[in-house]
């Protein structure tokens, strides 16, 4: 499913600024950023290590708060929300895929996937079946009772993708989803991510420094010096 240009934007960033105190100095990581992501769009965010990709993801998900500017997801302006409200919003509308998988080691694969539903108090058999369907889609239904430490890196990341989609979020944020995987496994994970997200018609923002991800993107953003440059996937300069 492609991006829906007629629908209202799913993500809007307006004048977003964020910096950190480092010793005596204040370092601005994001400087007056403006961005709009349409519903169903898959955006890849490129940038070197330390460029502020994770910071941007944390601001969009409401984990962190901007120094100034606004983050609007769907109809909700996260900037005006309390920490508690942002957390509740995140659990309902945001799915996360991390570089280091971040599965809950004390829960089985199935329990990990059902966790977002439980947090949202959605326990209908339909919801559960839907969530487990994603597990089947990532090819790990037979490992549903296994604990994460018994899975390979690629398998863990596939579980994380299924978990991110399980509660039908507005937006999926992926932070270096292939960063901890070998090339081949990374490609497989990428295929799964691309297929499932597009099948489900979800909006996704992937932060990475892996240029291969351009291949699945509708749009490529490049973060450097606190500002964003926007590129068509086919026209990203190799130097970036």
């Amino acid at each position: 499913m492609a991006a829906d240009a007629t629908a209202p934007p799913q993500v809007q960033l307006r004048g977003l600024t964020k910096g950190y105190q480092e010793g005596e100095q204040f370092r601005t990581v994001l400087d007056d950023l403006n961005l709009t992501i349409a519903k169903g769009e898959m955006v890849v965010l490129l940038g070197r290590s330390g460029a502020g990709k994770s910071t941007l993801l944390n601001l969009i998900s409401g984990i962190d708060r901007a120094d100034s500017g606004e983050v609007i997801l769907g109809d909700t302006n996260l900037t005006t929300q309390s920490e508690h409200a942002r957390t509740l919003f995140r659990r309902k509308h945001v799915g996360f895929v991390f570089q280091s998988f971040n599965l809950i080691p004390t829960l089985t694969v199935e329990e990990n996937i059902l966790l977002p539903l439980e947090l949202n108090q959605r326990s209908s058999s339909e919801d559960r079946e839907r969530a487990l369907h994603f597990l089947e889609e990532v090819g790990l239904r037979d490992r549903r009772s296994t604990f994460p430490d018994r899975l390979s890196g690629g398998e863990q990341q596939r579980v994380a993708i299924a978990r991110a989609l399980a509660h039908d979020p507005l937006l999926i944020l992926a932070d270096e989803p292939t960063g901890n995987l070998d090339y081949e496994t990374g490609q497989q994970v990428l295929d799964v991510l691309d297929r499932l997200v597009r099948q489900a018609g979800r909006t996704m923002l992937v932060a990475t420094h892996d240029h291969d991800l351009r291949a699945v993107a509708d749009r490529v953003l490049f973060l450097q010096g606190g500002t964003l440059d926007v590129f068509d996937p086919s026209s990203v300069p190799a130097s970036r």
Partner: protein
Amino acid sequence: MTPSLWRSSLRYLWRHPWLFGLSIVGVAMGVAMVVSIDLSNVSAQEAFELSAETVTGRATHQVRGAGEGLDEDVYRQLRVEHGIRPAAPVVEGHATVPDAGRTFQVLGIDPIAEGPFRSYASQDAGIALDVFMARGQTALIAEPVAQTLGRAPGDTLQVRIGGRDYALIIAGLLATDDERSRQALESVMVVDISTAQELFEMPGRLSRIDLIMDTDAERNRIEGLLPESARLDRSEARTETVEQMTRAFELNLQALSLLALVVGMFLIYNTMTFSVIQRRPLIGRLRALGVTRREIWRLILGEALLIGTLGTVVGLALGLVLAQGLVVLVTQTINDLYYVLTVRELTIDAWTLTKGALLGLGATLLATVWPAREATNAPASTVLQRSSAEASTRKAAPRLALGGLLLGLVGGGLLLIPGDSIALSYAALLLLIIGFSLLIPLVITRMAAGLRPVMDRLFGLIGRMAARGVVTTLSRTAVAIAALVVAVAATVGVGIMIDSFRSTVQVWLEGQLQADVYVQPPSLVFRQADATLDAGVVATFRAAEGVRDAHTVRSVHVETTHGRSELVAIEFGPATREAYRIKAGDPSVWDRLDSEPVVIVSEPYAYRHDVSVGDTIDIQTDEGTAPFEVGAVYFDYASDLGVITIGRPVYNQYFEDDAVSGLALYATEAQPVEGLVARLRTQVPEGQEVIVRSNQGLREASLEVFDRTFTVTVVLRLLAVLVAFVGVLSALMALQLERSRELAVLRANGMTPRQLWQYVTSQTGVMGLMAGLLAVPLGLILATVLVYVINRRSFGWTLQFNITPEILLQAVALALVAALLAGLYPSYKMAQANPADALREE
């Protein structure tokens, strides 16, 4: 909260059995100590109340005499001349039955007058009066006691009173339907009033007259009929006075057990902080997934509740077992110091168990609040990074230290507030402990820097890494070391307090015991001379060959302005004067003591009753109530209840009492003391047991009793040592087990199992050493507060602070040995494990 979150939490605990198990042990031991001490105190109290209730019966008031007795003529006048009824005469005391190795409360009564008071001892209970009253010396004992002793009515029972043996004929058996009285009766022996007067050498005298009255008018009338030397009291007043005697003792035991709980709390705090810090990344993941702060908070508190519940259940069970042993020690101490008490069984008090449960759960939850707050308050973005935790702890160290100093100052300030509140003293102590703990992160950072070159020289790179590692994981090590410091310091504080007490008593005894030989009848309460010496024995010993000089001691209990007090009458000679170390007062007091109504009081008496030199104490004497001026306050460690000392000539003016409770003899220059002791022993008349001891013998016996009375404190200290040991072990072991990934990296880089062992044990060793060294100053602070503030506020004693190097060395060794042991299992485990497993991502 979702079931998955709970499941995740339970599985975390299950996967860390050592941490889980040891934290349960921490709570359990704290609860066990509090519960066992409380149960022992309650059992002793219950036994006393039961016995008091049984021997008081339905009497509402009692008439008592000025000193050790009341003229029986007072009873005759009240009952016969003034028709006061119901009224019953009582002579009471204690007797041991050597065959049974037990002490009984002897109640001398008139069975005809007893009916309204104690049904079990009256005519109505079916006592055969012809046998009981007419057959010479007879006694009634409870049926179960007769069975245990294998005696039946008509048999003879050998009893010993004040060192003399008597044969009593069992005239019948005591029985009652009331379960409470039945238990109490097992420690009671009833005899006829005239028999009791013979047994206790109280011819023509009574211990008291029991009365039942309803109105103030009756009371006023009876008071008007009594002679000057007698007074009328409520029956409960006496019981309350006796109960008050042990209050400070019980309070201190409770406080000591609470100190163990505080140590336990630090261990729980350590466990929970550790488990929170270890799960920072996990908490970060959950927060990123949308788990709210409140849910994380509930999750951590839920875990604490589980640990607290399990620990409390185990602690209550352990407390019951421990109480069986402690009640014996507590009873022994009460018997040595205060009054005769027999505790037949442990009283399982529901309130004690509830209190223990509430304390266990409350302490666990309280200790968890801070770690839970830390887990929930950190922003999700920083919780995802471990390095930020360490950086922020290092940054916070100076601020924490400042906070610690301020808390310490507040604690010190509380101690300076005048008054005698023991609770306030313990609150101040707690603030000092917490304040000191907050200094620890900063101090160990400095200590590690100092230790690095030493460790480098000793163990090279591994030593350097070990010292540095303490600081790089400061968020975990600081908490663990703080917990250990508190645990070990508690043992140091209590140890120094006991030693200071003992050495003070030792020095005092050396000064106090000026005579060469001491003679006294055996006493059921060591620190009370409640029996008298035969006049013949006194005369014989005074005139014995080799005796240069002698003085007598008479100890009685009298009613004073400050309630019932011990009054000791002494023949003051030059040597006896030397025995007293005056704390306040004019040295000329000695000259006045033999001729004027002047007394000197012991330090605890002055403290308890706020009496100082120049004040007046009204003492009820056989001549009526008379004022006595306090001429001096002297140091004395024999009784925490306090003593009033009077010159014997003055005592004789006011009391019709020639009896002697003890005799001190001075040998001639040529007479070896041991020879004199041996010779005097041969001169003791048949039928009376008299204890003749040399100066050294009495000193040893006194210290033996001192040690015995402190056994319960020593046991508590040992238990605190055990808690500390478990604490060191659990904290450091958990820390090392959690580092398995880091250790696997070292193994992967070529570190041999032996080197790994060296690395782990040298790091736990460094931490143990730091904890041991830091426990010394905190232990000294605790000891100072215990010796100078809490002990003084509880008992009024001035103690000489005595630091025994062994106790300090023991503290450092305790921490170090436990720390080294704690390193064994993790290094063994890692040496055995395949590093590849540990290197795998979770």
